[in-house]
């Protein structure tokens, strides 16, 4: 599905060898679906859909819907049955149920959906551009940079910008530092990752510094940003992120073809007509924006950016970058981690950042230490 639009635009541009019926049937046998849309006088629009990717994305979307339902239905206040939850969502049923679903759980679930999607999409883009599965925004120091700036705006150090704007600035500063200090990304192996760890350590220290300087009330207000939690998140930050996520996803789909080629090497990409530096810049900008805005909502839950794309790559084909799949999988991981954190130690709520770190770190170690694991996406 992700390579659908880009292939369509190519087909209308060149029209070098129109598909014959036999070619089409060959394509169908190898798992491709050919759609032909008649466009009047102009040549018809042909769209190739990879069956497996389509199935994978449909599967992920279905899983996401089920998980959303379960998240809305379970909780410490009242556990609702499926129909009761649906009714409450649509405004029927007892006032308590409607209140619980609409006021308490729906904002939380929406926040989880958009932040999970944003983190995972950013992770997928950055991994592809860096040609390294470990290169997620969290490791490269973006999360810590965004957190430091968001905390600065909350504890009030004379800066009167809203947390989302500050977090965005922080992510951009951290990205500029990491990539500026190590030269270029995707060329010098693992080194920029360690430079990113250094940048992240500096910003983490700055966050600590600000938290120790302020009164206990301000420190408590800023605390959720430091561990990563979906509890009672600011509504305006969620709406800003939702507004940004859709164009970002469209831009990523538009970039899919270039990204697919970018996985090989700069030389191959250039010879196939993709401007490597332009593609890299666009993908990184989208990743930085998404990470900054998502941190402003949920704090540094960086491991979603590793788990989501990994999950999506496992179930889709190897020949494209699973942009849409990664977004869906990230939302799934975020919701599942949040649900787990709410349920597992029931009276206490484990922040989603800790749950994802506990799941993601062993995965990360396995990728790094297993000599047979592919380190390029």
């Amino acid at each position, binding site marked *: 599905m992700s390579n659908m639009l880009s292939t369509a635009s190519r087909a209308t541009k060149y029209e070098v060898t129109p598909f014959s019926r036999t070619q089409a049937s060959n394509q169908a046998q190898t798992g491709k679906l050919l759609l032909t849309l008649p466009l009047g006088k102009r040549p018809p629009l042909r769209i190739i859909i990879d069956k497996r990717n389509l199935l994978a994305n449909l599967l992920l979307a279905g899983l996401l819907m089920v998980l959303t339902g379960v998240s809305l239905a379970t909780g410490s206040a009242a556990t609702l049955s499926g129909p009761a939850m649906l009714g409450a969502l649509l405004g029927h049923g007892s006032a308590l149920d409607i209140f619980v679903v609409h006021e308490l759980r729906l904002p939380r679930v929406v926040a989880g959906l958009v932040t999970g999607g944003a983190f995972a999409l950013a992770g997928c883009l950055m991994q592809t551009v860096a040609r390294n599965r470990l290169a997620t925004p969290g490791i490269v120091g973006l999360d810590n940079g965004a957190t430091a700036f968001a905390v600065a705006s909350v504890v009030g150090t004379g800066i009167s910008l809203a947390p989302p704007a500050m977090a965005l600035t922080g992510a951009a500063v951290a990205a500029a530092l990491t990539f500026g200090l190590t030269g270029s990304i995707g060329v010098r192996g693992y080194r920029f990752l360690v430079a990113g*760890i250094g940048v992240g350590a500096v910003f983490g220290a700055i966050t600590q510094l600000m938290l*120790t300087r302020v009164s206990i009330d301000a420190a408590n207000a800023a605390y959720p940003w430091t561990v990563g939690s979906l509890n009672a998140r600011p509504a305006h930050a969620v709406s800003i992120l939702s507004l940004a996520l859709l164009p970002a996803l469209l831009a990523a789909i538009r970039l899919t073809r270039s990204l697919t080629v970018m996985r090989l090497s700069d030389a191959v990409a250039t010879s196939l007509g993709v401007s490597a530096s332009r593609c890299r810049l666009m993908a990184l900008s989208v990743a930085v924006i998404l990470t900054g805005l998502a941190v402003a909502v949920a704090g540094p839950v960086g491991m979603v950016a590793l788990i989501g794309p990994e999950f999506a790559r496992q179930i889709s084909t190897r020949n494209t970058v699973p942009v849409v799949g990664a977004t869906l999988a990230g939302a799934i991981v975020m919701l599942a981690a949040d649900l787990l954190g709410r349920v597992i130690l029931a009276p206490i709520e*484990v922040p989603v*950042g800790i749950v994802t770190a*506990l799941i993601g770190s062993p995965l990360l170690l396995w990728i790094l230490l297993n000599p047979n694991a592919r380190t390029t996406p």
Partner: protein
Amino acid sequence: MASFINRHADSRVMRSLKACRWSGASPSPVVTWGLLMILLAAIALLSLLFGAGDVGPGRAWQALSDFDAAAMHDSEAHFVIGELRLPRLGIGLVVGIALGIAGALLQAVTRNPLAEPGLLGVSAGSAFAVTLAILWGADAATLRISVAQLGALGGCLCVLAAARLQGIGNDPVRLILAGAILSGLLHSLSSLILLFDQYTADEIRFWVVGSLAGRDATDLMPLAPSLALAALLTVILARPLAALALGEHVAIGLGHHPRVVRLLVIVVVALLVGGATAIAGPVTFVGLVVPFAARALAGPDIRRTLWFCLPLGPIVVVSADIVSRLVVPPSELPLGVITALIGAPVLIAVVRRRRLPML
């Protein structure tokens, strides 16, 4: 080298100072070492003079110059210096030496200029072990130290196992990455424990940030045996390590046993890092900065590097401690914050080099 420095330091210093004045060459290592010791003494004095409280440098100097009389006239300054700043200085010295030496040893044994106990998860291992111990009801200082050292040993063994895996040991940067991930995992496990045990959280909150404040001199006593053992082992191991730096075959040919040496070094590192962590909390980046500077001053020989780590470690830790007291006067900053701010740029500088040196 110790006796040599003690006996002949003065005449050698004068001669080489003269020599470098005439020839314009850089001073010999002995001179540099002496200068570092003088610098350390000056910094130690400064740490007694400056503080976050209202005993300023002038008052502190008066109390110091006539310490017994100050007990009568200015009992506040006497108390602040004798009971607060002096133990703190002592702990800073011990922590600095322990972390600096541990960093140098770990870097030598993994042959990796980036190996740092804090980055590789050794400190995180001992912090996690202490958290577990407090959760299960332990709070005696001696128990905490041995538990921290056991945790550090666990962390060290993980590092060594990772370094021996195919392809990781030859790539300094990947080993650091694995260590950083391990640290993150242990850190989130610790926070999970703190989350559902309020008592543990209160007990450990002041310890987990890494600080020299509020530590008692008596905390040092239970640490003494293990530190003495570590010192003895370091003296014994210095020569085999220097041989090991030439390659495993050369070391075997010279009559050393690389496996035994490696195992003993890991034990020493665990003793040092565990002890330092038990007393000051996890303080990162000291074990990176100190050997880095020591190698720049002393050259690649591990025996000289270790000598230079002796003054450099306390210099870094004590001066970071002074800064942590002076930045926000009424309150104090955690020491770990300052060392991270110093250490991270060094890490980036090392990584930026075109060729990473293998030790």
